[in-house]
């Protein structure tokens, strides 16, 4: 436990000692800020229109703003996750510091968990920016906070799964760009897999759609914790970290 924390602290230190973390935070803040502003604008426009036409308008902030924005965050996350994980192992392999970690009295799994945890914490910091925006909704309206919390839980689980995959990919190469590009490709594929369910209902299509990380977020976005979806994410996290461990082991046998 102590070793995991030591590694995690060191990784967070490197994120925040270099411009990486700040650039990610700023970009994410800007992009999400625009999404939020947009969503709010259209919400206000719609509600004024419906008042003028005399139609009754369901003024639900959760339905109209929080839920779509949360699924936006899950998509924006796909673009940021490769940038978070690409350096985790690739850089240590390139500079040779992996030898320091691998010859210290710590287990491989402790190194892996520490690094993965640091990446999850950095992602959580990105989510904090979205929370700042949502705070305005609570000041001027009365949205339900429980679905929002469930949504955040879903986002963290989904990101944890993708980050675990990214961590694994980062052990495969010395080149950060390659690690980042491959992770991005895999994330994107896992996102669009569910499209097949639009025109095909055969078993293979349903399996593919099941593997899509986005479909499992829907229930969380609605504020419902579906154990089926939670189990999916936890399984992917477990598999990702398991393959990372295998990859680190094979690194020793091969190199």
């Amino acid at each position, binding site marked *: 436990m102590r*070793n995991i924390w*030591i*590694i995690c602290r*060191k990784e967070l*230190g*490197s994120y925040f*000692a*270099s411009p990486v973390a700040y650039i990610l935070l700023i970009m994410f803040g800007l992009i999400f800020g625009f999404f939020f502003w947009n969503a709010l604008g259209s919400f206000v426009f719609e509600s004024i229109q419906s008042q003028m036409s005399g139609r009754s308008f369901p003024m639900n902030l959760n339905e109209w703003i929080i839920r779509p924005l949360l699924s936006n965050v899950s998509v924006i996350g796909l673009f940021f996750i490769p940038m978070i994980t690409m350096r985790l192992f690739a850089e240590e392999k390139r*500079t*040779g*510091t*992996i*030898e*320091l*970690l*691998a*010859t*210290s*009295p*710590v*287990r491989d799994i402790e190194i892996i968990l520490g690094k993965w945890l640091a990446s999850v914490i950095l992602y959580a910091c990105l989510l904090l920016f979205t929370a700042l925006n949502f705070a305005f909704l609570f000041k001027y309206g009365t949205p339900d906070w429980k679905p929002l919390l469930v949504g955040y839980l879903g986002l963290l689980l989904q990101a944890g799964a993708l980050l675990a995959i990214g961590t694994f990919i980062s052990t495969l190469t010395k080149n950060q760009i390659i690690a980042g590009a491959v992770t991005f490709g895999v994330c994107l594929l896992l996102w669009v897999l569910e499209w097949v369910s639009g025109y095909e209902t055969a078993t293979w299509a349903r399996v593919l759609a099941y593997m899509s990380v986005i479909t499992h977020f829907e229930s969380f976005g609605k504020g419902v914790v579906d154990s089926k979806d939670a189990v999916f994410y936890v399984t992917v996290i477990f598999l990702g970290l398991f393959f990372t461990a295998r990859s680190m082991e094979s690194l*020793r*046998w091969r*190199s």
Partner: protein
Amino acid sequence: MRNSPLTAKFMITVKQLTKRYARTTAVDEISFEVAKGQIVGFLGPNGAGKTTTMRMLTCFLPPSSGTAKVAGFDVLEQPLEVKKRIGYLPETPPIYPEMATSEYLQFVGKLKGLSGSELAKRVDYVCGRCAISDVKTKLLGKLSKGYRQRVGLAQAVIHNPDVLILDEPTAGLDPKQINETRDLIKDLAGEHTIILSTHILPEVEQTCEQVIIINKGKLVATDSVRNLQARARGAESVLVEVAGRSGSLEPSIVQNTLEQVAGVSRVLCKQQGDARAVFEVESKKGSFVRGDVARAIVESGWDLNELRPAAMSLEEVFLQLTGSETADEPETPVEVHAS
């Protein structure tokens, strides 16, 4: 933590250690032992398998066959116990450029299991010991090569390990830094058992007590520095400096005279100046010629300024042992050392 089952006097025991890759055998059935508190030089041309052997000793690479024990613990069976007792400096110091020196040493110390006041004490101690106190707050990425190497050494000794494994600790340093690093290593020898690899021979002659020579993954020789020099020498060889009393000296006459001495097999004129000359006199195997040579010179009316045994430099020993493959190695400074 279990107590070390170490009862023998050997800190490192390597038996038939082998590392095979798909096509090549990097290390081929190497066996050696290192006694506690010794400095051992691990010598070989580039690509001889030095780094691979060291990586197996540090549990970074698992051996294909054979065993290696450090402080009584097997590298395959109890890697954590081995790692606790080893300090390792890879060929390039494993530093994080974005960290400050003290921050880095604290991180490594924690990683090796230190904490609290003990950690702070050790960080201060190794900073003083490795002369890096003045760059404690500087970022590692901004340090010069010499400082980085010393920070690398500092991280290797931070947890006061029984065994220090240093892979080419002086590579890429300037001569002044090389001397400082060698002195530092010699200084550390009292507390730790040290294995250092190098392809520079004088380094071994200057810093090590024991040499392990490997070539193409195979063990070529393992002995003390002095024995190795003697072994390759075989016959006795002495250097004599002769001076003429009257202010002039004819080297060819001296050479003739020396060649006539019983037991002398070869005389070489190594140097000549005004009224003095240096000769290397080689004896036949098993005969001792020093006395006769001295007498012959004095009786011929010359002065004998100096007479000392010519030790063969390790360079020559090395070339003899490893054969002609080393001829195209990057040149290493050749120095003739007298013992």
